[in-house]
């Protein structure tokens, strides 16, 4: 069970609380977690990564275990603490704008 923390606007869109959980079969990667997240909450499709290119939106970041995973390969294995559910994967919106 992988815990995912969403930014407030996406919680509103998905009608969920601050944290959701997803199950991923096999080696957990960022891509598989996002695939599963979007399958469970299709209203989030296109909001975290582009609908067509699947590239991360520029003003969003992926943090986990005090590391910025945003520039890592989406197919890299996630840290053990994320896979075990000890730590959440955090989808964070850039602090910018007005």
């Amino acid at each position, binding site marked *: 069970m992988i815990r995912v923390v969403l*930014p407030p*606007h*996406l919680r509103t*869109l*998905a*009608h*969920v609380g601050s944290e959701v959980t997803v199950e991923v079969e096999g080696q957990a990667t960022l891509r598989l977690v996002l695939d599963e997240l*979007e*399958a*469970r*909450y*299709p*209203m*989030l*499709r*296109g*909001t*975290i990564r*582009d*609908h*067509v290119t699947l590239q991360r*939106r520029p*003003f*969003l970041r992926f943090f986990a275990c005090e590391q910025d995973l945003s520039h890592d390969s989406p197919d890299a294995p996630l840290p053990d603490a994320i896979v075990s559910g000890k730590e959440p994967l955090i989808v964070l*919106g*850039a602090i910018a*704008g007005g």
Partner: protein
Amino acid sequence: MSKVRVLAGTRKGAFILTADGKRDKWDVSGPHFAGWEMYHMKGSPADPNRIYASQTSGWFGQIIQRSDDGGKTWHQPGTPPGDAAKPPEMPKGESNKFAYDTSPETGKPLTTHQWYDGTQHPWEFKRVWHLEPSLTDPNTVYAGVEDAALFRSTDGGETWKELSGLRGHGTGPKWQPGAGGMCLHTILLDPKDPKRIYIAISAAGAFRTDDGGNSWKPINRGLRSQYIPDPNAEIGHCVHHVAMHKARPNVLYMQKHWDVMRSDDAGDNWREVSGNLPTDFGFVIDVHAHDPETIYVVPIKSDSEHYVHEGKLRVFRSKSGGNEWEALTKGLPQSNCYVNVLRDAMAVDSLDKCGIYFGTTGGQVYASADAGDSWAPIVRDLPAVLSVEVQTLP
């Protein structure tokens, strides 16, 4: 008694303002989609309870929202509100997907347009500026997007397909973004000819199809723009908005970057009708619901000072289809006012007398229940208003 429902999209959410036919006491609902930019909301002429909304964010991209109950509740088309998806009825979540057509048969594939520095730049989807529901089918709706293209949904917004003949007709590589981006912001459906559609793009110009969107042609003859290398070019004009009266769809009125223009032949030829306006820069233009020769604009000081002239918020009305204009000021601030009225932020109802509505970048939404003779604010302190539409309800 008839009612009106005003749909106001703002920088930080949507608001729905309702009143009876007197239009003097208003209920305000909102913010809906709090914190999001609401570029446009518009109701279906065929089913007033069906409203489409463009919800967008620099962080999270484009969301299409739909209401089937007059704005009380909303959902993303094809995606059930609330619960997580459960197989086997997994929704596809396609309603926010605007994928440019690059197929050899229809998209050609057109992949670049002109960038600010004159080089070619890839087409990149950013947001939906304008939603135009079909005049006859609640499930058919058109979307004008940035970077400029026209999409259509025939399933209530669940899926979208580009009408790629527009981008692919030949002039696409010459289109370039205006200061606000390269947006397709105006969509006019001809009520007498279902195959005829007009659209406008900043900064490319106006275009028309006569075959339901398969083929398109520029309709910019007569436009003159000093700020482009060839002021009379076929393409490159920064058209801000175009309006039409449903009883006379061959007559078009245009607020260009500078100049108010008129065409009496479906856009084939344009002539300037700025007349005695104090400045002919502006964004909005609209037509009286019952008089095709009565039109409204809100002149803005200049392209470098985007606020009303002389600190006075004045709507200008022409009862002669242009050239002779009168300032409408009763009830509007006439000193120290420095707001703008954006291109989609004016609408008219179809009551008698015709109601006129507009929203400002200062967050006011003004209404006139007497065709512009007098005005009163419905609300004064909303976020900056991006769009205003109105529905006249039985």
